[in-house]
Protein backbone atom coordinates (compact mmCIF):
# COMPACT_ATOMS: atom_id res chain seq x y z
CA UNK A 1 0.00 0.00 0.00
CA UNK A 2 1.29 3.46 -0.85
CA UNK A 3 1.42 6.32 1.61
CA UNK A 4 1.12 10.07 1.27
CA UNK A 5 4.30 10.98 3.14
CA UNK A 6 4.10 14.76 2.80
CA UNK A 7 1.73 17.44 1.55
CA UNK A 8 3.13 20.75 0.32
CA UNK A 9 0.95 23.77 -0.38
CA UNK A 10 1.66 27.14 -1.91
CA UNK A 11 -0.27 30.29 -1.12
CA UNK A 12 0.72 33.05 -3.49
CA UNK A 13 -0.73 36.21 -4.99
CA UNK A 14 -3.07 38.74 -3.52
CA UNK A 15 -6.17 38.18 -1.46
CA UNK A 16 -9.40 39.39 -3.07
CA UNK A 17 -12.42 39.35 -0.79
CA UNK A 18 -16.01 39.28 -2.06
CA UNK A 19 -16.28 42.85 -0.80
CA UNK A 20 -13.39 43.89 -3.03
CA UNK A 21 -14.42 41.84 -6.07
CA UNK A 22 -18.11 42.81 -6.14
CA UNK A 23 -17.81 46.49 -7.16
CA UNK A 24 -15.35 45.57 -9.90
CA UNK A 25 -17.65 42.88 -11.26
CA UNK A 26 -20.71 45.14 -10.98
CA UNK A 27 -18.91 47.78 -13.04
CA UNK A 28 -18.12 45.16 -15.68
CA UNK A 29 -21.75 43.99 -15.79
CA UNK A 30 -22.86 47.61 -16.27
CA UNK A 31 -20.76 47.80 -19.43
CA UNK A 32 -22.13 44.64 -21.02
CA UNK A 33 -24.32 45.08 -24.11
CA UNK A 34 -27.43 43.61 -22.51
CA UNK A 35 -31.10 44.60 -22.39
CA UNK A 36 -31.80 46.23 -19.02
CA UNK A 37 -33.83 43.32 -17.65
CA UNK A 38 -31.06 40.86 -18.46
CA UNK A 39 -28.46 43.17 -16.94
CA UNK A 40 -30.43 43.40 -13.69
CA UNK A 41 -30.81 39.62 -13.60
CA UNK A 42 -27.09 39.10 -14.18
CA UNK A 43 -26.13 41.77 -11.64
CA UNK A 44 -28.35 40.20 -8.99
CA UNK A 45 -26.92 36.79 -9.81
CA UNK A 46 -23.37 38.10 -9.34
CA UNK A 47 -24.35 39.80 -6.08
CA UNK A 48 -25.83 36.54 -4.87
CA UNK A 49 -22.73 34.56 -5.87
CA UNK A 50 -20.60 36.97 -3.88
CA UNK A 51 -22.72 37.20 -0.76
CA UNK A 52 -20.96 36.78 2.56
CA UNK A 53 -17.39 36.72 3.68
CA UNK A 54 -15.25 34.79 1.25
CA UNK A 55 -11.91 35.41 -0.40
CA UNK A 56 -9.68 33.97 -3.07
CA UNK A 57 -6.00 34.28 -3.95
CA UNK A 58 -5.25 35.88 -7.30
CA UNK A 59 -1.76 35.44 -8.71
CA UNK A 60 -2.38 37.41 -11.90
CA UNK A 61 -1.19 40.98 -11.18
CA UNK A 62 -4.02 42.68 -13.06
CA UNK A 63 -6.76 40.26 -13.98
CA UNK A 64 -8.98 43.06 -15.29
CA UNK A 65 -6.58 43.55 -18.19
CA UNK A 66 -6.69 39.94 -19.31
CA UNK A 67 -8.43 39.64 -22.63
CA UNK A 68 -6.45 38.13 -25.42
CA UNK A 69 -5.45 34.51 -25.68
CA UNK A 70 -1.83 35.64 -25.43
CA UNK A 71 -2.32 37.61 -22.22
CA UNK A 72 -4.17 34.75 -20.53
CA UNK A 73 -1.79 31.99 -21.62
CA UNK A 74 1.20 34.11 -20.55
CA UNK A 75 -0.41 34.85 -17.18
CA UNK A 76 -0.93 31.13 -16.66
CA UNK A 77 2.70 30.35 -17.45
CA UNK A 78 4.04 33.12 -15.20
CA UNK A 79 1.81 32.14 -12.31
CA UNK A 80 2.45 28.41 -12.72
CA UNK A 81 6.20 29.01 -12.60
CA UNK A 82 5.81 30.99 -9.35
CA UNK A 83 3.83 28.14 -7.83
CA UNK A 84 6.36 25.53 -8.96
CA UNK A 85 9.22 27.51 -7.46
CA UNK A 86 7.37 27.86 -4.16
CA UNK A 87 6.64 24.14 -4.05
CA UNK A 88 10.14 23.14 -5.12
CA UNK A 89 11.56 25.24 -2.27
CA UNK A 90 9.60 23.04 0.18
CA UNK A 91 10.10 19.69 -1.58
CA UNK A 92 13.87 19.93 -2.09
CA UNK A 93 14.97 20.13 1.55
CA UNK A 94 12.45 17.47 2.60
CA UNK A 95 13.58 15.02 -0.09
CA UNK A 96 17.25 15.78 0.61
CA UNK A 97 16.73 15.14 4.31
CA UNK A 98 14.98 11.85 3.56
CA UNK A 99 17.70 10.83 1.13
CA UNK A 100 15.31 9.99 -1.69
CA UNK A 101 14.90 10.75 -5.38
CA UNK A 102 11.61 10.71 -7.21
CA UNK A 103 10.86 7.84 -9.58
CA UNK A 104 7.93 9.65 -11.15
CA UNK A 105 6.43 13.13 -11.31
CA UNK A 106 2.73 13.45 -12.16
CA UNK A 107 1.24 16.89 -12.69
CA UNK A 108 -2.32 18.03 -13.12
CA UNK A 109 -4.00 21.23 -14.18
CA UNK A 110 -7.24 22.07 -15.90
CA UNK A 111 -6.76 25.79 -16.13
CA UNK A 112 -3.89 26.20 -18.56
CA UNK A 113 -1.76 24.46 -21.08
CA UNK A 114 2.03 24.43 -21.19
CA UNK A 115 4.61 22.63 -23.24
CA UNK A 116 6.88 21.39 -21.82
CA UNK A 117 4.46 20.51 -19.08
CA UNK A 118 4.34 21.19 -15.36
CA UNK A 119 6.09 17.92 -14.46
CA UNK A 120 9.06 18.89 -16.62
CA UNK A 121 9.21 22.39 -15.18
CA UNK A 122 8.99 21.16 -11.59
CA UNK A 123 11.71 18.56 -12.23
CA UNK A 124 13.89 21.34 -13.62
CA UNK A 125 13.59 23.11 -10.27
CA UNK A 126 14.32 19.98 -8.25
CA UNK A 127 17.70 19.27 -9.81
CA UNK A 128 18.99 15.79 -9.08
CA UNK A 129 15.93 14.82 -7.07
CA UNK A 130 14.29 13.81 -10.34
CA UNK A 131 16.57 11.44 -12.23
CA UNK A 132 16.99 11.34 -15.98
CA UNK A 133 15.15 8.03 -16.11
CA UNK A 134 12.28 9.18 -13.89
CA UNK A 135 8.84 9.04 -15.45
CA UNK A 136 7.04 12.34 -16.05
CA UNK A 137 3.35 12.54 -16.84
CA UNK A 138 1.10 15.58 -17.25
CA UNK A 139 -2.61 15.08 -16.80
CA UNK A 140 -4.70 17.67 -18.60
CA UNK A 141 -8.37 18.53 -18.96
CA UNK A 142 -9.25 16.55 -15.86
CA UNK A 143 -10.84 19.38 -13.92
CA UNK A 144 -11.27 19.53 -10.19
CA UNK A 145 -10.80 15.77 -9.73
CA UNK A 146 -7.31 15.88 -11.26
CA UNK A 147 -5.26 15.61 -8.07
CA UNK A 148 -7.11 12.54 -6.77
CA UNK A 149 -6.99 10.99 -10.23
CA UNK A 150 -3.23 11.50 -10.06
CA UNK A 151 -3.17 9.77 -6.65
CA UNK A 152 -5.20 6.94 -8.15
CA UNK A 153 -2.70 6.66 -10.99
CA UNK A 154 0.24 6.72 -8.57
CA UNK A 155 -1.14 3.89 -6.46
CA UNK A 156 -1.42 1.65 -9.52
CA UNK A 157 2.15 2.18 -10.73
CA UNK A 158 4.72 -0.56 -10.38
CA UNK A 159 6.06 -0.86 -6.79
CA UNK A 160 9.57 -0.40 -8.18
CA UNK A 161 8.60 3.26 -8.41
CA UNK A 162 9.09 3.92 -4.73
CA UNK A 163 8.70 7.68 -4.54
CA UNK A 164 6.24 9.61 -6.66
CA UNK A 165 5.65 13.32 -6.68
CA UNK A 166 2.23 14.72 -7.59
CA UNK A 167 1.73 18.41 -8.26
CA UNK A 168 -1.53 20.29 -8.89
CA UNK A 169 -1.30 23.85 -10.17
CA UNK A 170 -4.48 25.77 -10.89
CA UNK A 171 -4.81 29.34 -12.13
CA UNK A 172 -8.54 29.71 -12.79
CA UNK A 173 -8.37 33.49 -12.50
CA UNK A 174 -6.64 33.53 -15.90
CA UNK A 175 -10.04 32.49 -17.26
CA UNK A 176 -12.03 35.32 -15.71
CA UNK A 177 -14.25 36.57 -18.51
CA UNK A 178 -15.84 39.89 -17.63
CA UNK A 179 -17.20 40.25 -21.18
CA UNK A 180 -19.33 37.14 -20.86
CA UNK A 181 -23.08 37.49 -20.63
CA UNK A 182 -24.17 34.07 -19.43
CA UNK A 183 -24.79 33.08 -15.84
CA UNK A 184 -22.41 30.12 -15.92
CA UNK A 185 -19.49 32.28 -17.07
CA UNK A 186 -20.14 34.62 -14.15
CA UNK A 187 -20.57 31.72 -11.78
CA UNK A 188 -17.06 30.69 -12.82
CA UNK A 189 -15.80 34.25 -12.37
CA UNK A 190 -17.18 34.33 -8.84
CA UNK A 191 -16.29 30.80 -7.75
CA UNK A 192 -12.61 30.21 -8.29
CA UNK A 193 -9.23 31.22 -6.87
CA UNK A 194 -5.62 30.31 -7.66
CA UNK A 195 -3.71 27.65 -5.77
CA UNK A 196 -1.24 24.80 -5.92
CA UNK A 197 -0.18 21.80 -3.89
CA UNK A 198 2.05 18.75 -4.12
CA UNK A 199 2.17 15.28 -2.59
CA UNK A 200 5.06 12.94 -1.97
CA UNK A 201 3.73 9.42 -2.25
CA UNK A 202 6.00 6.59 -1.16
CA UNK A 203 6.00 2.83 -0.69
CA UNK A 204 7.56 3.20 2.75
CA UNK A 205 5.39 5.04 5.27
CA UNK A 206 6.96 7.86 7.24
CA UNK A 207 5.87 9.56 10.45
CA UNK A 208 2.58 11.37 9.89
CA UNK A 209 2.02 9.50 6.62
CA UNK A 210 -1.43 8.73 5.24
CA UNK A 211 -1.90 5.23 3.84
CA UNK A 212 -4.03 5.25 0.68
CA UNK A 213 -6.64 2.62 1.49
CA UNK A 214 -9.25 3.13 -1.18
CA UNK A 215 -10.07 5.20 -4.22
CA UNK A 216 -13.30 4.68 -6.13
CA UNK A 217 -14.00 6.29 -9.44
CA UNK A 218 -17.37 6.98 -10.96
CA UNK A 219 -17.59 8.62 -14.34
CA UNK A 220 -20.77 9.32 -16.29
CA UNK A 221 -19.71 9.59 -19.89
CA UNK A 222 -23.18 8.42 -20.84
CA UNK A 223 -24.93 11.52 -19.54
CA UNK A 224 -22.31 13.82 -18.12
CA UNK A 225 -20.62 15.46 -21.08
CA UNK A 226 -22.39 18.79 -20.68
CA UNK A 227 -22.64 19.08 -16.92
CA UNK A 228 -19.31 20.87 -16.36
CA UNK A 229 -17.07 21.74 -19.28
CA UNK A 230 -15.01 24.42 -20.92
CA UNK A 231 -16.71 26.58 -23.51
CA UNK A 232 -14.68 29.22 -25.30
CA UNK A 233 -14.73 32.75 -26.63
CA UNK A 234 -11.33 34.41 -26.90
CA UNK A 235 -10.16 31.81 -24.37
CA UNK A 236 -11.69 28.98 -22.41
CA UNK A 237 -14.69 29.79 -20.22
CA UNK A 238 -16.49 27.92 -17.48
CA UNK A 239 -19.75 26.35 -18.63
CA UNK A 240 -22.48 24.37 -16.90
CA UNK A 241 -25.58 22.56 -18.02
CA UNK A 242 -28.78 24.29 -17.00
CA UNK A 243 -28.96 24.55 -13.21
CA UNK A 244 -31.79 22.10 -12.70
CA UNK A 245 -30.16 19.33 -14.77
CA UNK A 246 -26.85 20.06 -13.12
CA UNK A 247 -28.23 19.92 -9.59
CA UNK A 248 -30.26 16.76 -10.15
CA UNK A 249 -27.60 14.80 -12.00
CA UNK A 250 -24.71 15.84 -9.79
CA UNK A 251 -26.61 15.08 -6.63
CA UNK A 252 -27.59 11.67 -7.95
CA UNK A 253 -24.05 10.74 -9.02
CA UNK A 254 -22.36 11.98 -5.85
CA UNK A 255 -24.99 10.31 -3.66
CA UNK A 256 -24.58 7.00 -5.50
CA UNK A 257 -20.82 7.09 -5.19
CA UNK A 258 -20.92 7.83 -1.48
CA UNK A 259 -23.67 5.28 -0.85
CA UNK A 260 -21.60 2.55 -2.46
CA UNK A 261 -18.64 3.44 -0.27
CA UNK A 262 -20.67 3.83 2.93
CA UNK A 263 -19.08 0.96 4.82
CA UNK A 264 -15.75 2.74 4.46
CA UNK A 265 -16.80 6.18 5.69
CA UNK A 266 -19.69 5.76 8.10
CA UNK A 267 -17.47 5.43 11.17
CA UNK A 268 -14.88 7.97 10.05
CA UNK A 269 -15.94 11.56 10.74
CA UNK A 270 -13.11 13.39 8.94
CA UNK A 271 -13.83 14.57 5.42
CA UNK A 272 -11.77 16.43 2.84
CA UNK A 273 -14.40 17.39 0.28
CA UNK A 274 -13.73 19.41 -2.83
CA UNK A 275 -15.39 22.77 -2.08
CA UNK A 276 -17.68 22.92 -5.10
CA UNK A 277 -21.40 23.29 -4.75
CA UNK A 278 -21.56 23.73 -1.00
CA UNK A 279 -25.36 23.72 -1.19
CA UNK A 280 -25.28 20.44 -2.96
CA UNK A 281 -22.87 18.95 -0.46
CA UNK A 282 -24.96 20.05 2.48
CA UNK A 283 -28.02 18.45 0.88
CA UNK A 284 -26.17 15.22 0.19
CA UNK A 285 -24.70 15.20 3.69
CA UNK A 286 -28.16 15.52 5.18
CA UNK A 287 -29.50 12.77 2.95
CA UNK A 288 -26.70 10.34 3.77
CA UNK A 289 -26.54 11.20 7.45
CA UNK A 290 -23.09 12.77 7.27
CA UNK A 291 -22.88 15.30 10.13
CA UNK A 292 -22.80 18.97 9.15
CA UNK A 293 -19.46 19.33 10.95
CA UNK A 294 -17.95 17.02 8.34
CA UNK A 295 -18.39 19.77 5.75
CA UNK A 296 -16.65 22.30 7.99
CA UNK A 297 -13.06 21.84 6.73
CA UNK A 298 -14.28 22.35 3.17
CA UNK A 299 -16.42 25.37 3.99
CA UNK A 300 -13.56 26.93 5.96
CA UNK A 301 -11.25 26.43 2.98
CA UNK A 302 -13.91 27.82 0.63
CA UNK A 303 -14.31 30.95 2.75
CA UNK A 304 -10.59 31.61 2.71
CA UNK A 305 -9.56 30.47 -0.77
CA UNK A 306 -12.76 29.81 -2.74
CA UNK A 307 -12.47 26.89 -5.17
CA UNK A 308 -8.89 26.20 -6.33
CA UNK A 309 -10.03 23.37 -8.61
CA UNK A 310 -7.80 20.28 -8.16
CA UNK A 311 -5.53 21.97 -5.60
CA UNK A 312 -8.30 22.57 -3.04
CA UNK A 313 -8.76 19.03 -1.78
CA UNK A 314 -5.01 18.73 -1.12
CA UNK A 315 -5.03 21.93 0.97
CA UNK A 316 -7.99 20.60 2.96
CA UNK A 317 -6.30 17.22 3.38
CA UNK A 318 -3.15 18.87 4.70
CA UNK A 319 -5.15 20.84 7.29
CA UNK A 320 -7.02 17.73 8.41
CA UNK A 321 -3.90 15.55 8.50
CA UNK A 322 -2.34 17.84 11.09
CA UNK A 323 -5.07 17.04 13.60
CA UNK A 324 -5.77 13.41 12.69
CA UNK A 325 -4.50 10.91 15.26
CA UNK A 326 -2.67 7.72 14.22
CA UNK A 327 -5.12 5.05 13.15
CA UNK A 328 -7.87 7.48 12.14
CA UNK A 329 -9.00 7.90 8.54
CA UNK A 330 -9.82 10.87 6.33
CA UNK A 331 -12.43 10.51 3.60
CA UNK A 332 -11.78 12.26 0.30
CA UNK A 333 -14.43 13.37 -2.17
CA UNK A 334 -13.84 15.26 -5.38
CA UNK A 335 -16.15 15.91 -8.27
CA UNK A 336 -15.91 17.80 -11.53
CA UNK A 337 -15.66 18.08 -15.28
CA UNK A 338 -17.82 16.05 -17.62
CA UNK A 339 -19.03 14.46 -14.65
CA UNK A 340 -16.72 12.44 -12.48
CA UNK A 341 -16.80 11.68 -8.78
CA UNK A 342 -13.95 10.14 -6.83
CA UNK A 343 -14.22 8.85 -3.30
CA UNK A 344 -11.05 7.94 -1.44
CA UNK A 345 -9.95 7.08 2.06
CA UNK A 346 -6.54 7.58 3.63
CA UNK A 347 -5.47 6.54 7.12
CA UNK A 348 -2.82 8.06 9.35
CA UNK A 349 -0.28 5.33 9.88
CA UNK A 350 1.89 6.60 12.74
Amino acid at each position, binding site marked *: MRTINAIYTAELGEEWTNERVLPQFEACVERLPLPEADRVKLR*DFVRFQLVGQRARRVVVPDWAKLGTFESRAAAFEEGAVQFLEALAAQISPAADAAGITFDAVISTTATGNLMPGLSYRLAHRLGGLVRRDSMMIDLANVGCTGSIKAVNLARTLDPSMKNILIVAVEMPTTLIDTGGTTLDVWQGNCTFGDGAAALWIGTEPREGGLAIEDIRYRQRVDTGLELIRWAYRDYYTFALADQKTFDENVREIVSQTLSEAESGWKDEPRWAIHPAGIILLMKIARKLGIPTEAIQPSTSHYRRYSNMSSASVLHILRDLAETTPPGAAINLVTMGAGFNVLYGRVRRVK
Partner: protein
Amino acid sequence: MSMEPNAVLERMRAYFERKQPPEVLATFGTQSPKALLPDSLDVVDFILYLEEVTGCEIDINEVGEALMNKNFDELADEVSRRLAAR
Protein backbone atom coordinates in the same frame (compact mmCIF):
# COMPACT_ATOMS: atom_id res chain seq x y z
CA MET B 1 -47.75 22.11 -2.92
CA SER B 2 -49.09 25.54 -2.11
CA MET B 3 -48.65 27.68 0.97
CA GLU B 4 -50.01 31.13 1.71
CA PRO B 5 -47.42 33.93 1.99
CA ASN B 6 -48.30 34.44 5.66
CA ALA B 7 -47.65 30.78 6.41
CA VAL B 8 -44.31 30.92 4.58
CA LEU B 9 -43.41 34.08 6.48
CA GLU B 10 -44.27 32.45 9.80
CA ARG B 11 -42.01 29.50 9.04
CA MET B 12 -39.23 31.85 8.01
CA ARG B 13 -39.64 33.76 11.25
CA ALA B 14 -39.43 30.51 13.24
CA TYR B 15 -35.96 29.92 11.79
CA PHE B 16 -34.74 33.10 13.46
CA GLU B 17 -36.55 32.55 16.79
CA ARG B 18 -33.52 32.03 18.96
CA LYS B 19 -31.07 33.71 16.64
CA GLN B 20 -32.37 37.27 16.57
CA PRO B 21 -33.50 39.69 19.32
CA PRO B 22 -37.25 40.30 19.95
CA GLU B 23 -37.19 43.74 18.31
CA VAL B 24 -35.96 42.21 15.05
CA LEU B 25 -38.54 39.43 15.21
CA ALA B 26 -41.30 41.97 15.93
CA THR B 27 -40.64 43.64 12.58
CA PHE B 28 -39.50 40.48 10.84
CA GLY B 29 -41.44 41.01 7.61
CA THR B 30 -39.67 44.27 6.90
CA GLN B 31 -36.22 42.94 7.72
CA SER B 32 -33.72 42.29 4.95
CA PRO B 33 -32.60 38.66 4.38
CA LYS B 34 -29.23 40.05 3.39
CA ALA B 35 -28.83 41.59 6.85
CA LEU B 36 -29.97 38.55 8.81
CA LEU B 37 -28.08 36.05 6.65
CA PRO B 38 -24.70 37.70 6.28
CA ASP B 39 -22.80 34.62 5.20
CA SER B 40 -23.36 32.46 2.12
CA LEU B 41 -23.51 29.38 4.32
CA ASP B 42 -26.19 31.04 6.44
CA VAL B 43 -28.17 31.48 3.24
CA VAL B 44 -27.69 27.82 2.35
CA ASP B 45 -28.74 26.68 5.80
CA PHE B 46 -31.83 28.90 5.64
CA ILE B 47 -32.82 27.55 2.22
CA LEU B 48 -32.36 23.96 3.37
CA TYR B 49 -34.57 24.75 6.37
CA LEU B 50 -37.21 26.27 4.06
CA GLU B 51 -37.13 23.16 1.88
CA GLU B 52 -37.73 21.01 4.93
CA VAL B 53 -40.66 23.03 6.27
CA THR B 54 -42.33 23.56 2.89
CA GLY B 55 -41.59 20.02 1.66
CA CYS B 56 -40.49 21.46 -1.65
CA GLU B 57 -37.14 21.91 -3.31
CA ILE B 58 -36.11 25.53 -3.75
CA ASP B 59 -33.64 26.58 -6.43
CA ILE B 60 -31.35 28.95 -4.56
CA ASN B 61 -30.48 30.78 -7.76
CA GLU B 62 -34.16 31.41 -8.50
CA VAL B 63 -34.76 33.10 -5.17
CA GLY B 64 -31.32 34.68 -5.06
CA GLU B 65 -32.53 38.01 -6.41
CA ALA B 66 -35.26 38.19 -3.74
CA LEU B 67 -32.74 37.27 -1.06
CA MET B 68 -30.49 40.09 -2.15
CA ASN B 69 -32.96 42.89 -2.81
CA LYS B 70 -36.22 42.28 -0.97
CA ASN B 71 -37.51 42.01 2.58
CA PHE B 72 -38.92 38.88 4.18
CA ASP B 73 -42.52 39.85 3.35
CA GLU B 74 -41.60 40.03 -0.32
CA LEU B 75 -39.46 36.90 -0.13
CA ALA B 76 -42.38 35.00 1.42
CA ASP B 77 -44.57 36.18 -1.48
CA GLU B 78 -41.96 35.00 -3.94
CA VAL B 79 -41.56 31.58 -2.34
CA SER B 80 -45.33 31.16 -2.03
CA ARG B 81 -45.74 32.02 -5.73
CA ARG B 82 -43.05 29.54 -6.74
CA LEU B 83 -44.56 26.79 -4.59
CA ALA B 84 -47.98 27.37 -6.17
CA ALA B 85 -46.46 27.19 -9.66
CA ARG B 86 -45.10 23.66 -9.13
